[in-house]
C-alpha cells in the first residue's frame, strides 16, 4: 500500500449558490478541508450541505466564489482522477440493469481509452476494491438486489477503484445498520492513514466525534470549522441546528427565506 500519497486539500472560497427560483442556498461559504483528514460537514436538512457538496464536485456552478482541490480548479482535478464521489442512496436509480461489478468498473472509466475497454489492471483493481469492502460474492448482483449497507459498499468500492485522493461521501450512514457503519468507518480511517482526504456530509451527530478529525458546521453559510473537539461545542451546535439569531440572518442573507 502506498503509505505516502501526495495529500490534497479542498479550499472553498466565498462560494454562494443561488438556484433558479432565486432561493439563496449557500451564502459566502469559505472553508478548508485539511489534507489527510476525515472532515465532517454537518448541518440540518436544507442547510446547503448538498449544495456545497455539489459545488465542490462541480455538479453545479456557484454564482460566486471558487473551489480548488490540491490547488487545482475542480475540472482539472477531476480529469486527473483526484476526486471520487459516493452519492446519496436516493440519487441512484436502483432499478438500472447494471451489476455491482459494472458499477465498480465505472470507477475506472477515466483511466481507459475512448472505447472504455478494461485492461487487466482495471479488472484487478475492481476485484481488489470489491474485496476491500467485502462485496466480492455479490459482484454479479443487480444493484437493486442489495441491502442498504451493501449498496453503500458497492459505491464505496467504485470510489476505491477510481483511486481518487479526495473522497466525498454524501450521507453515507443513512439506511445502514450499526455494523456496516462501523465497517465503513474503519475503512475510512484506513484510507485517511494512507493519505486520502475525506469529506463526509452527515446530519447524524452521534458518530462524528468517534472518527472525524475535523468538523465544519453549516447552515446556509459556514458557522464554525476546526478540530472536532473544539468545534463540537454546545453553542456551535445550537447555532447550527437551532437557527441563527435573527439579526445576523437579516444581515447575511438579504434575499433568503430561512426555515427555522
Amino acid at each position, binding site marked *: *500500500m502506498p503509505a505516502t500519497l501526495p495529500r490534497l486539500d479542498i479550499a472553498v472560497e466565498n462560494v454562494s449558490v443561488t438556484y*433558479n*427560483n432565486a432561493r439563496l442556498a449557500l451564502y459566502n461559504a469559505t472553508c478548508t478541508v485539511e489534507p489527510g483528514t476525515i472532515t465532517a460537514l454537518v448541518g440540518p436538512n436544507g442547510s446547503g450541505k448538498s449544495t456545497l457538496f455539489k459545488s465542490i*464536485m*462541480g*455538479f453545479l456552478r456557484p454564482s460566486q466564489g471558487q473551489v480548488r482541490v490540491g490547488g487545482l480548479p475542480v*475540472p482539472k482535478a*477531476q*480529469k*486527473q*482522477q483526484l*476526486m*471520487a*464521489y459516493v*452519492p446519496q442512496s436516493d*440519487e*441512484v*436509480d436502483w432499478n*438500472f*440493469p*447494471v*451489476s455491482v461489478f*459494472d458499477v465498480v468498473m*465505472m*470507477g475506472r*472509466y*477515466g483511466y481507459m481509452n*475512448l*472505447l*472504455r475497454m478494461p485492461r487487466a489492471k482495471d479488472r484487478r483493481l475492481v476485484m481488489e476494491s470489491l*474485496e*476491500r*469492502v*467485502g462485496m466480492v460474492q455479490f459482484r454479479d448482483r*443487480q444493484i437493486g*438486489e442489495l*441491502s*442498504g*449497507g*451493501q449498496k453503500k*459498499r458497492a459505491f464505496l468500492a*467504485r470510489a476505491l477503484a*477510481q483511486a481518487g485522493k479526495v473522497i466525498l461521501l454524501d450521507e453515507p450512514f443513512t439506511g445502514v*445498520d450499526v*455494523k*456496516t457503519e462501523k*465497517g*465503513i468507518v*474503519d*475503512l475510512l480511517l*484506513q484510507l485517511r492513514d494512507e493519505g486520502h482526504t475525506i469529506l463526509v456530509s452527515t446530519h447524524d451527530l452521534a458518530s462524528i466525534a468517534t472518527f472525524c478529525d475535523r468538523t465544519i458546521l453549516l447552515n446556509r453559510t459556514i458557522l464554525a470549522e476546526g478540530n472536532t473537539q473544539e468545534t463540537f461545542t454546545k453553542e456551535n451546535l445550537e447555532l447550527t441546528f437551532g437557527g441563527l439569531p435573527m439579526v445576523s440572518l437579516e444581515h447575511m442573507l438579504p434575499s433568503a427565506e430561512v426555515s427555522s
Partner: protein
Amino acid sequence: MSAVIAALPGWDWIVEPLQYGFLVRAIWVSAFVGLVCAVLSCYITLKGWSLMGDAISHAVVPGVVIAYALNIPFAIGAFVFGFGATVAIGYIKSRTRLKEDAVIGIVFTGFFAFGLVLVTKIPSNIDLFHILFGNVLGISQPDIIQTLIAGVITLVVILVRRKDLLLFCFDPNHAKAIGLRTPVMYYTLLLVLALTIVAALQTAGIILVISMLVTPGSIGYLLSDRFDHMLIISVVSSVFSCVMGTYLSYHFDVSTGGSIVVLLTLLFVMAMIFAPKYGILAQEFRQRSPQPLEEDSQKQQVVVDQA
C-alpha cells in the same frame, strides 16, 4: 428436401410475398429500422427520454416539407429540424424557469404546427399521411439510402460510445466526477435520437416511431436485469415485429406501420403480464407468498485488510 419444406403449413404464406421486389425491400428496410430503433430504445427508456423522442419526431415535419420544396434529401431537412428542436428545448429550459415537460410540449407542437402550415401552403407531392404514419411499401431507392446512412451512423456511434452513454444514463454525476464531458454525451444521445427518427420516418412515420423507440427497450427492461440481455431481447422483439408486421400488412391489406406497432405492443403486454421477475403475475405471486428478506448484512462485515 425442398418438397418437404414447401409442404409445411405456412410456407406459402412466407414465401409467396417474396416474389414482389417492393415487399422484399419493405421487409428488410423495416427490419433494419427495427434493429436501429431497438438498440437506441434501450438507452432512451433507461434515460427517461421518451417525451424527447416524441418531440423530435414531431419537430421534423417542417424540415421534411422544406427539404422537398428545395429538392434536397428529406433526411437532411428532417435532421436539421429534429436536432434543432432539441437545441431550442435545451436553450429555453436553461433561460427560463419553466420545467422541461412544458418546454418540450411548447417546442414540439410549435414545430409541428409550422410543418402543417407549410404542407398546406407549399405546393408539393408530399402526402401528409405518409409522414404521419409511414409508407414503407412505397419506399423509393433514394429514401432507402438515406435510411441506411442515418441508421448506420447511429449504430456506429452507439457501438463506439456505448459505455459512456450507459454511464451517462445511469449516473451523470459520476461521469462528471471522473472528468468526462457530459454535455458531449447529452448531445451525442440527442444526435443519434434525431438520426434514428429520420431513419424510421419512412417505415413508421412520426407518430408510430415513438412506439419503436420506447416499446422494445421496455420489453427488454421488464425481462432482464442485465443491459446486454435487455439489448438482445429488445432487438429480437423489434426485428420480429417489423418483419411479421410487414407480412401481416401484406396478407391482410392493412397499414404496415400500424401492424408493426400492434405486434410490438402485444409483445409488450405479454412481457408485462408474464415476465418471470417483474411481470404482474410474478409480482402478485411473490406478494402472496412472502419470502423472508435475505438479511446478510448481519453476517457480512466490511473486510478490513491490514496492509
